[in-house]
């Protein structure tokens, strides 16, 4: 049984049946969504606002020393691929650790990935400045079809890196007028 603490037209916030810590609030958009891009910007904003105010309540009401807010976009393979955001209350020496082992990447590799991301991010920025819908663009529909493909690619293994690269190149080919 979930314990609902807040709901409105866009989101529903509750304390999970099996919380990670006693101060744990989970927020879910009402709209069916697997990725952030399945929501519109207002819905994303409201989702994160609800998370931020949840954090405030954990700080002020439960005297948390810190809070973590974590949202992981869902894989299609998951049983219930509904997007949710978890707000976790933290105290000194609670034994939790969300920290990762840093990956060692060659400077060249870093440059390459930065360029790739920047290339696409420029399109996003352009859409943002000119108030165009970045999410309804070609990419959005393709994301749903391509993402499973990419996981299939990984399943088949072999040349994961190469495949991605060609995909990326293919994409940039599409962009040339």
């Amino acid at each position, binding site marked *: 049984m979930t314990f609902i*603490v*807040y*709901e*409105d*037209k866009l989101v529903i*916030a509750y304390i999970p049946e099996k919380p*990670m*810590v*006693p*101060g744990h609030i989970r927020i879910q958009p009402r709209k069916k969504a697997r*990725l*952030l891009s399945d*929501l519109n*910007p207002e819905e994303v*904003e409201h989702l*994160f606002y609800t998370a931020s*105010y949840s954090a*405030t*309540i954990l700080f*002020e*009401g*439960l005297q*948390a020393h*810190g*809070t*973590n*807010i*974590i949202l*992981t*976009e869902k*894989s299609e393979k998951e049983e219930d691929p509904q997007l949710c*955001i*978890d707000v*976790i209350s*933290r105290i000194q020496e609670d034994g939790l650790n*969300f920290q*990762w*082992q*840093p*990956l060692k*990447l060659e400077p060249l590799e870093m440059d390459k990935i*930065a360029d*790739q*991301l*920047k*290339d*696409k*991010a420029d399109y996003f*920025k352009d859409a*943002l*400045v000119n108030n165009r819908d*970045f*999410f309804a663009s070609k*990419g*959005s529909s393709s*994301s749903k079809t391509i*993402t499973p493909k*990419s996981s299939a690619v990984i399943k088949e293994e072999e040349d994961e890196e190469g495949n*991605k690269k060609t*995909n990326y190149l293919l994409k940039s080919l599409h962009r040339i007028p």
Partner: protein
Amino acid sequence: MVTQEEWDKMSDSEKQEFQKKALEEQKKNCIFCKIVSGEIPGKKVFEDDKVIAILDINPSAKGHILVLPKDHYAILPLLPPEIFKHMFRVCQGLSKVIDDTLLVRSTIYIANGAVAGQQSPHFLFHIVPRDDGDKLSNFDIKENHFEGEEFEKYKAIIKQNMPLIMKNHLQRENRLDLLDTSNSQEQKQEQSVSQVESNENPMQKSLSNNPDERREQLALILDNNPQLKEIIKNNPEELEKAMAQDPRIAEIFKGVDIRALSTNLKSMDEDKPRFSGESIEEKAQKFDLDNLPFFDEMDSSASSDVEFEDKVEQNDDVEVETENYGDSSYEEIEDSPLERELSGTENDKEEFQEEQEDIAEENDATSHNPPKVFLGENPLEQREKVFEYFEEKPKAKELLKNDPDYFIELLEHKPEVKLLFEDVDIKLLSKRLREVEQK
């Protein structure tokens, strides 16, 4: 840096000054502020006037992005609304960029506070590319089982405050329509708001220039903060001062005739006292920090009420003895120990409360809220300090008793003493002291 010893020796004003300097120092040394200014190079992925996104130099995965506001803020709840909104618009866009470029989904990871793993005092969030079967199980939300009193208490606190804080937010955003799917608690609130409106017809005059939501908001705020209401009622000058100091409070009361509101509230109280109908526990759980950081009433109001009763009981004997003095003059009060004054003020309070209760016989008297002399976080401790100070300086006490306005003025020149009287309702205290003397 200072040692613990040096820190302990500092006066409170020095500490404040030191913390202010430390924050400036922090900004000066902030590595991310330097990246924003270009002093330190970073691999920029996105940049505009408010936000910058760079690659993390200690990535958890290939394409791990950090998104940070250009201005220095410590944690997420401190971001101003326009930055907040913009950041998450960018967040959504960049997660899509990762989807389109790397063909994977992502994790958004935020740490507020060093305990939560925040490594820099400059707020930022992470966008981590994720794929099925990657080894980033550190971001998994693990399941546990909790039960017991404390957990139930936590749940109650969250359930109590979440709708309040969200309603305040939606009010500011002008999106109250989102609450249409309301639960019973919400409806209750709505009801009390309309009640206030119907009761406060005279108020319409002073607020007629403002949209309806403003009045509703104000009524709700007053309803949620009986203590604040008392202050407006008894001490409008205090609020005006607070408004001058805190722009957020000023914002709430902008265009409101405080004096008129004060008299309205007073007359309302005489006509027909209103009660929120909450138990003390509920009140203790309720707080409205978001709107009123200045008057935090959390646990203090409840605990001090309880404490009053206890002390009065304990001091019953003392009371009998001192009553033998008959018309006790000021000197006698000076001679008698601290407890005399303590029991005096508290007893007055008790009496005051009783008076109020008499007026309000028909209604549930237990939920009544008498005006508080001490408004701070730890009223009992503060009270003791204040009385210690009075024992040391009887002249100051005399002054406070006879000329509270001048005393308040003097406080402005003595920050250390002012700190001692922080949140103390000086006029009310003065009145109480005079009452004690008259006995």
